[in-house]
């Protein structure tokens, strides 16, 4: 169902076979079937026999199958997401306009956060719906949507850190830690409980050590230290030694007045000290403290040994960067990702692939991956668009031509067309298509012309939108359609005021039998005089002549009629 040039001809190396096979459920489809496209992503399948059947009873079993793609975004909860994000998308296009003349990075960041908050609201709505849903299958569906949007928010947040946010000195660690804490909170509650209780001998709690180690790995050094003090042996030398090591860890701050170089030196010095403490075997009696020390000196095997306590490698990514290369810049995280991901051989999830690609800086791969998410392209479209406007996308095809804007456009067009299928969301879809001229407007024209128009109110809306985007053809064809309806209802006045039919009256006026009554003729005359500017003078004169002649003969004919009646 992909019609855009990008998806149907994938860029090199990224192509996958996305075709799905469905078995038609009925016997009548076993021989030959035909297929006809409807509007949008709909088609009808029908049995087609090429031989003329002599026994008509055969066909009684025949069925027509209407097939349409089930669109997640059209469910009521996600319609909120669609509408709200449309507003942000349009603000972003405006911001991009101003960004052409001045730097607008702050505005982009604001809009990126807005997108994320929209996703979070959507997740909350889904959670609320899940808690109310009693049907098991439905509930599972909603839960799977929650998973989808969780990973979307997670990826968006990381993208924001790596590409949109303005990071002082480009030192990514604090942001990375924040990302880990936010999306993979672990042991947080236990830590809070223990600190609240504030009792010595907290090691009785079964998760005590996991919590302490967890806090270290998440970079919450202060919390870890506070927890260590609650240990019944907290005053012992071993504990003091670890506490001291944690306390004295240099933390880089761009406003701290020292250069990255100086920081690197002092940090390495600190770690060397820790390493010597560890090798002095003073901690031999406290294996857990030893583990903490091994973690903070960035010992791979120590991280490896705790990896199985976490559901994913993202949990330890922040800690790994913190204790191996806290000066890492945004685009130097690929190695850390590889190290953490390699600590445990576990089946790679889709989220893994996306985060890996992102940390490696392969945005092309990221976009390719997020296109596989079953959110009908919402995420891929909006993320690509914002990255494009931030100037962070650079995607080359086989011939090394830059296809970035083509990629963005194809995603937006596809998303826009999808929305235009919906009875109510067409106007949202249109605003996406309109943001990609000229191709988007060409598509909009085709779709708008075929849109069912039940009322004048809708016709007026469509015409207003069409005119706004310069689609005069659409405006005219909708006018014509409304005129035809009025005409068939026998209401000439209504028909003529929809602009285009004025000249079309000419042949009717000249027909052998009078079509318009004298009253109708007056009406058309009035119309003509009010609208004479829309016709060139020659045509207008021709029409005036025809009107006068028609008026003459109808007036006579009607005059006769009334006289006859009077008699």
């Amino acid at each position, binding site marked *: 169902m992909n019609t855009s040039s990008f998806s149907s001809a994938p860029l090199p190396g990224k192509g996958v076979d996305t075709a799905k096979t469905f078995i038609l459920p009925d016997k009548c489809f076993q021989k030959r079937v035909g297929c006809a496209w409807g509007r949008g992503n709909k088609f009808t399948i029908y049995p087609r026999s090429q031989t003329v059947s002599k026994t008509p009873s055969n066909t009684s079993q025949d069925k027509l199958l209407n097939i349409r793609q089930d669109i997640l975004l059209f469910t009521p909860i996600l319609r909120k997401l669609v509408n709200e994000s449309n*507003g942000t998308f349009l603000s972003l296009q405006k911001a991009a306009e101003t960004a052409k003349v001045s730097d607008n990075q702050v505005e982009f960041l604001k809009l990126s956060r807005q997108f994320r908050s929209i996703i979070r609201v959507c997740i909350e709505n889904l959670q609320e719906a899940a808690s109310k849903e009693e049907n098991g299958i439905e509930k599972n569906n909603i839960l799977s949507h929650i998973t989808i949007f969780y990973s979307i928010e997670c990826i968006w947040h990381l993208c924001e850190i790596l590409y949109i946010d303005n990071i002082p000195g480009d030192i990514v660690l604090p942001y990375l830690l924040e990302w880990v804490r936010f999306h993979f909170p672990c042991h947080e509650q236990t830590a809070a409980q223990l600190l609240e209780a504030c009792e010595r001998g907290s090691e009785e709690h079964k998760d005590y050590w996991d919590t302490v180690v967890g806090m270290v790995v998440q970079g919450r050094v202060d919390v870890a230290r506070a927890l260590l003090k609650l240990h019944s042996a907290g005053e012992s030398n071993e504990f003091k030694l670890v506490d001291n090591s944690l306390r004295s860890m240099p933390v880089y701050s761009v406003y701290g007045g020292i250069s990255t170089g100086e920081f690197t030196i002092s940090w390495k010095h600190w770690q060397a000290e820790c390493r010597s403490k560890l090798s002095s075997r003073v901690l031999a009696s406290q294996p857990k403290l030893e583990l903490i020390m091994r973690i903070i000196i960035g010992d791979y095997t120590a991280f490896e040994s705790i990896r199985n306590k976490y559901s994913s490698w993202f949990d330890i990514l922040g800690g790994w960067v913190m204790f191996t290369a806290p000066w890492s810049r945004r685009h130097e995280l690929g190695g850390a990702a590889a190290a953490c991901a390699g600590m445990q051989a576990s089946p790679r999830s889709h989220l893994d692939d996306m985060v890996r690609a992102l940390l490696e800086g392969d945005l092309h791969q990221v976009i390719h991956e997020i296109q596989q998410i079953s959110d009908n392209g919402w995420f891929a479209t909006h993320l690509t668009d914002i990255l494009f406007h931030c100037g962070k996308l650079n995607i080359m095809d086989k011939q090394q031509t830059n296809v970035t804007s083509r990629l963005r456009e194809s995603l937006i067009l596809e998303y826009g067309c999808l929305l235009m299928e919906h009875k*109510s969301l067409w*106007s949202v879809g249109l605003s996406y298509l309109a943001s990609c001229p000229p191709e988007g407007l060409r598509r909009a024209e085709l779709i708008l012309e075929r849109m069912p128009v*039940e009322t*004048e109110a809708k016709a007026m*809306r469509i015409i207003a939108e069409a005119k706004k985007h310069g689609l005069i053809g659409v405006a005219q064809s909708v006018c014509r359609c409304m005129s035809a309806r009025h005409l068939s*209802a026998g209401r000439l006045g*209504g028909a003529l005021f929809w602009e285009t039919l004025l000249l079309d009256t000419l042949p009717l006026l000249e027909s052998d039998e009078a079509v318009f009554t004298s009253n109708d003729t007056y*009406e058309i005359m009035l119309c003509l005089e*009010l609208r004479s500017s829309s016709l060139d003078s020659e045509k207008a004169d021709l029409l005036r002549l025809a009107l006068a002649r028609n008026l003459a003969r109808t007036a006579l004919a009607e005059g006769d009629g009334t006289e006859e009646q009077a008699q």
Partner: protein
Amino acid sequence: MPLDVQGTFVSQKINKIRWIAEDYVESKCFFTGSWDDEVNSVKVWSFESPHEEDEVDYPRALSEYPVEGDVTEIKFIDKNKIAVSLSNGDVKVLEVSVYDRQSPLREVFHFKKLHNYGEEPCSCTSLDTLEGDIATIGEDGNVNVLSGRRGEVMHSIKGADSCSLHSICFIKHNEVITGNIRGHMKIWDLKATNNKPAASFLLAGDELAATCIIHHPTQPHIILAGSESGSLAVWDLRMNSFPTSLVNAHSAGVSEMQFHPENPHKLLTCSASGELWDWNMEAMTKSSKGPDNQVTWMPLEDKKAMMVNSLIPALHKPINSLHCDKGRILCGADNEAVYLIKNFKY
């Protein structure tokens, strides 16, 4: 306190929105009518704060009444009864329970195919109510006057217009003014039997629809009409048939107007361009006495006298409806959201 705007997405394009007035307390519930969806409905909502300490109120749907076609207008007949016009040509009178807002709306009357092209359905585009009477208009160009109490059609003006009618307003008990798709305005004496308008005039020379008509709350001879072009026209019916003034206002069609119920100097308008404006009409309504002791209507040409505020940043989609209750304004829009504007000074 500063103006507080709060939007809630409701998964339906909202065509009409109306506060449900309460006795003695601040109103909390409101009606919405949707349009342009597979299934449209009239819903009752209530503002509730999910957490006690929360300052923010979120609307929660209390009941839903599905309808055929689009909801084109909602007007009150009395405190708890509304007349609803639909694009399938029907008009319904619905009642919300006084004691339990949550209980489903009760259908009091149903006027089927009130507007039609014979067998073909035709949209009932709008209606107005006055003391229990309902005047409806449609694309068929007819005007019907219904009794909202007895549920019968009292009077019909067939072929009131050769074009479709788009706006209507009661001037007096026996007089309505209608506006058609080309901006032709006609005044109808409902007692007359000749099906001829008592007066007719043009909204503007641009042939665009009259999208809404209202009259001034304290000076009912002052009529305001909004145009599809976004401009606003004012007539003094005592004077002549030309608009006293025509102001270019919104950049797209005016969708609804309301004088503030407590302060007739305040006018609120919303538009297809997504704008919500508050007008200070004080200068306009201050009539002065001319030399012959005739009250003259202050012309709007003196634009400096017009104070216009934009109440919310323009939406990207049309705002279809607004309703004001004291310092709180409700808006319904095509971006499938409703907005509550609090702390509005009037």
